[in-house]
């Protein structure tokens, strides 16, 4: 079965115009204590690719993308993000984090800062952008996620969907090369899921490199170049969305899809 996974990795995807490698993970292993949470992960993401990572809960999807900006530390193997290898070197880690945006399940906006301040804090203090320019950029992205009128409010005054859109805008303000989404719609009311997905679709249309952990299979079909299916800490199957959904190979994938696509 591992052989099959290997071939799946090399399966050609849509060729991007000026493709380069955005993320390369080779032979990566991670343990939480004695628990082997990620096993032998190999994953290559080209610039402009949209990867959806699916799988049952506890399969290590979130842990995998959290390793990419080193919110989690891996113990074996290599992770190279935009040409920089992640090691315990804090300078390198901060360098990678500046270029990699992340959107969390629970938004994690800063409740003591206004929406605008949430968006300008990192550009001002990490990138050294002048305040006026940072605010201009922030308003641009807030308009893009369609909530410029909320700029002076605080996160606690916004709905879940609005908060998640602010979280996306906050990440975009750092002008990242890669965006990670960790179950961005899982904590939202059903009525608000679409507004967040719409923003993500428009990001994908603009050619952003995206890794998305999600249970929204409709989104995966619509925007993903590749779907990665994980189970028990391993990549079990990887394919383009059409073949992944219509013709799953691995027994576990078939079972999973039959459970969620009624």
């Amino acid at each position, binding site marked *: 079965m591992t052989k099959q996974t290997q071939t799946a990795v090399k399966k050609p995807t849509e060729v991007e115009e000026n493709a380069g490698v955005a993320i390369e993970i080779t032979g990566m292993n991670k343990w939480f204590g004695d628990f082997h949470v990620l096993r032998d992960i190999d994953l290559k993401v080209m610039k402009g690719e949209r990867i959806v990572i699916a799988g049952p809960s506890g399969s290590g999807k979130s842990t995998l993308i959290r390793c990419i900006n080193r919110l989690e530390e891996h113990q074996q193997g290599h992770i190279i993000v935009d040409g920089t290898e992640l090691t315990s070197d804090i300078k390198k880690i901060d360098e990678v984090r500046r270029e990699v945006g992340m959107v969390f399940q629970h938004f*994690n906006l800063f409740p*003591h800062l206004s929406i605008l301040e949430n968006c300008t*804090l990192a550009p001002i*203090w*990490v990138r050294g952008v002048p305040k006026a320019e940072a605010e201009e950029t922030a308003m641009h992205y807030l308009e893009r996620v369609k909530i410029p009128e909320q700029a002076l409010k605080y996160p*606690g005054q916004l709905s879940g969907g609005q908060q998640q859109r602010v979280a996306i805008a906050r990440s975009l303000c*750092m002008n990242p090369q890669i965006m990670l989404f960790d179950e961005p719609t899982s904590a939202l009311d059903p009525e608000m899921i679409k507004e967040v997905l719409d923003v993500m679709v428009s990001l994908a249309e603009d050619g952003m490199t995206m890794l998305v952990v999600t249970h929204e299979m409709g989104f995966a079909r619509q925007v993903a170049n590749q779907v990665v299916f994980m189970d028990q800490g391993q990549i079990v199957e990887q394919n383009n969305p059409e073949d992944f959904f219509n013709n799953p190979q691995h027994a576990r994938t078939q079972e999973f899809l039959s459970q969620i696509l009624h």
Partner: protein
Amino acid sequence: MAKNNLAYVRTEIVPESPAPDLSKGIIGWVKNNLFSSISNSIMTIVGAMFLMWVLPPIYGFLFGNAVWPGEGVTVEDCRAKGAGACWAYIDDRMTFFIYGFFPKDAYWVTQEGLIASIMTYWRVNLVFAVGTLLLVPLMWPDLKYKLLNSILFFVVYPVFVFFMLTGGVFGLEEVPTVKWGGLTVTLIIGLVGIVVSLPLGIVLALGRQSKMPIIKTFCIMFIEVWRAVPLITVLFMASVMLPLFMPVGMTIDKLLRALVGVSLFSAAYMAEVVRGGLQALPKGQSEAAASLGLNYWKSMGFIILPQALKHVIPGIVNSFIALFKDTSLVAIVGIFDLLRATQVANLNLDWASSNQAITGYVFAAAIFWAFCFGMSRYSIMMEHRLDTGHKN
């Protein structure tokens, strides 16, 4: 529309209406809070009777029968039968309560009038005035120039206070700290303790959560040692034992030793309060900060500490209040704070009367209460101000 059809479509919005009258106004409040049940009604009546029993005598002592300062009021009035609090005595000794044995200005002490009485202790009064002028705008949230204000208050002002009170330069008479006393000393110890213990406590709390073993161990040891020792023991050790370890002929000022002792002692408590706030923050906050590229110090300074400290304002102010009251313990090692000044003044034979000591202690208690109550109200105001409506 068929009446018994289950399908239902609302055609109009129910308008908002005011709450029923019984739950509003004075009558509603009294009914809800004082007479909501039989047992509550009984407690209300018993409580009211208790107050009627204790309040009149207290009022009589403090105000009704009290001897107020004025023309021709002497100690004989306080000695009269049925006399209440001897406020005339407090008025007469007021400068002692505030300044202790701080030397009077040689010129102004010979003059008459209000200005002269202020100028008699102009060095201390100037310290008070400048401190107030710097502290009020610092605590006033809407005013600008906070950075300049902070530098002036936390850096320049202590130096100013030191030279102003100690003297020995610019032609000022030198005043050793043993002559400082009264409210002045209480405020100095309280303020220094507060200003030093909060930042030090924050550093210790961060250190205790550090991943670096040496820093972590040091912080834990520091906190646990200071917390496990009573403040009185700390003060005794500072004043009695420390000199034994010093080289012959070398002394450290007694007040300075007490200041260090009180500050470090409260810093250990403050560290635990701050740690509580740090632990209450969800991990997502520091992860979000990290994912934006903020390093440890920026993440702490902009994201974690502002929220953590806001959460523990009640605990911080609790420590401040405890610290301010604990300053009275320095009396034990012979530092002349407000309480010690009161004790000494109470022994004064010029005003010897049965109520002299009680009046003195009531006065000292009232001063402590005023400062602590002020801190408490200020902290409540800040809590409301900083509340952005999001309990994360």
